[in-house]
């Protein structure tokens, strides 16, 4: 650390350093910071570490540092509040073949008399992957279009994965589909959401028969009801099982393990970092 360029540097500055460290001294006189970056101007520059901002979509808020609530959090971080943000909607151009697929899909939906903006909630490009968030009632239409349109031709569905976001109010349950096009060698992701109070998503077994077991599995673990599925029954758990075990509000169900003179609680009961 060179002398006093940042607030956190000197031993005397320790008290207030953390909060105004990034702004402060350098920006006032317009000089460049130690990395050759002017923090005032280049705040959004790619070369800065990830900033806590209002980008993305809040799906949850976290308090404290430790996962288990009710346990003695003596760390002093109990008042820490963080929001969990998923990557938000992307605007065009998406880059690469993503635009082509998006154009074709929107065009094909147009041809069927649908308004693409109503069907596709948002499009997310993140980590080199294209995700269409679809309004749930249009899912079979979109899937059929993606499968049959010669320019899209996503022949292979790799099943559905359920995700439960209890903090994402009104859209707690997500069903995530990955579609692979062998013809064009592409992979896209469809995501639909349903509220906990009305956990219904239309089934796409009629379009992709391979989703038969996958939808049963997601129903089994998350309680997502796939309307129109030929036989939506439990597949992994015993038929008389209560609850949907992989939802976030379902406990892990472990038992404390006894050792000589000690007892270790189940993994979900332990104090741990999140």
């Amino acid at each position, binding site marked *: 650390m060179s002398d006093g360029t940042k607030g956190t540097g000197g031993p005397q500055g320790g008290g207030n350093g953390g909060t105004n460290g990034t702004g402060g001294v350098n920006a006032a006189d317009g000089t460049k910071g130690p990395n050759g970056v002017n923090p005032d101007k280049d705040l959004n520059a790619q070369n800065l570490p990830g900033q806590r901002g209002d980008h993305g979509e809040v799906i949850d808020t976290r308090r404290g540092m430790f996962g288990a609530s009710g346990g003695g959090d003596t760390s002093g971080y109990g008042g820490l509040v963080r929001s969990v943000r998923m990557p938000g909607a992307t605007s065009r151009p998406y880059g690469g073949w993503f635009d082509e697929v998006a154009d074709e899909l929107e065009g094909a939906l147009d041809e069927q008399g649908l308004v693409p903006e109503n069907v596709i909630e948002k499009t997310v490009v993140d980590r080199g992957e294209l995700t269409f968030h679809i309004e749930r009632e249009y899912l079979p239409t979109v899937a059929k279009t993606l499968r049959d349109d010669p320019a899209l031709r996503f022949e292979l569905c790799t099943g559905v994965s359920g995700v439960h976001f209890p903090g994402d109010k009104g859209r707690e349950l997500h069903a995530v589909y990955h579609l692979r096009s062998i013809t064009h060698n592409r992979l896209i992701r469809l995501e639909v959401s349903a509220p906990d109070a009305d956990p219904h998503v239309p089934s796409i077994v009629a379009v992709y028969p391979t989703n038969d077991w996958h939808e049963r599995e997601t129903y089994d673990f998350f309680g997502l009801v796939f309307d129109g599925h030929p036989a939506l029954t439990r597949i992994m758990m015993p038929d008389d099982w209560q609850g949907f075990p992989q939802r976030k509000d379902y406990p892990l*169900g472990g038992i404390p*393990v006894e*050792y000589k003179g000690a*007892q270790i609680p189940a993994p979900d009961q332990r104090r741990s970092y999140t």
Partner: protein
Amino acid sequence: MGLEEKLPSGFLLSTVEQAAGWVRKSSVFPATFGLACCAIEMMTTGAGRYDLARFGMEVFRGSPRQADLMIVAGRVSQKMAPVLRQVYDQMPNPKWVISMGVCASSGGMFNNYAIVQGVDHIVPVDIYLPGCPPRPEMLMDAILKLHQKIQGSKLGVNQRQAAREAEEAALKALPTIEMKGLLR
């Protein structure tokens, strides 16, 4: 056979015990109860390199009615538990159980909603075999230890006496959590 169960305690019974134990241990028929990873190691044990046939037990029986040893090889899920018990009940007496691997013995790393935390909740276990999965050598070691146990098993009145003593000892045993000292 049943006749040996009615012999009076004494020299005759202990001789029959030894003979029966020797015969029984020399030709144990395991039931195939492969569940998960351990099942592969169990099959390996039966295959060429480890050659379980050396101990007179290369014949894994598909039908539990022809078997007297159940090697529970792998994690037992809640859904599998009733099936496992039924297979055990179908085996004729005398019968033994080896709980192969940590998952069968105690649930192991899968301390969760899906796995029975130890197959001893469902069937009585004679040998617990640790490891994830245990090596074939370990399985053979467990089998040889079981052979010793079978050789020393009692019959008739002696068996009932032994069962009583075992129960008394179990009732007196200190729970794990109250034990002190090193993990041994």
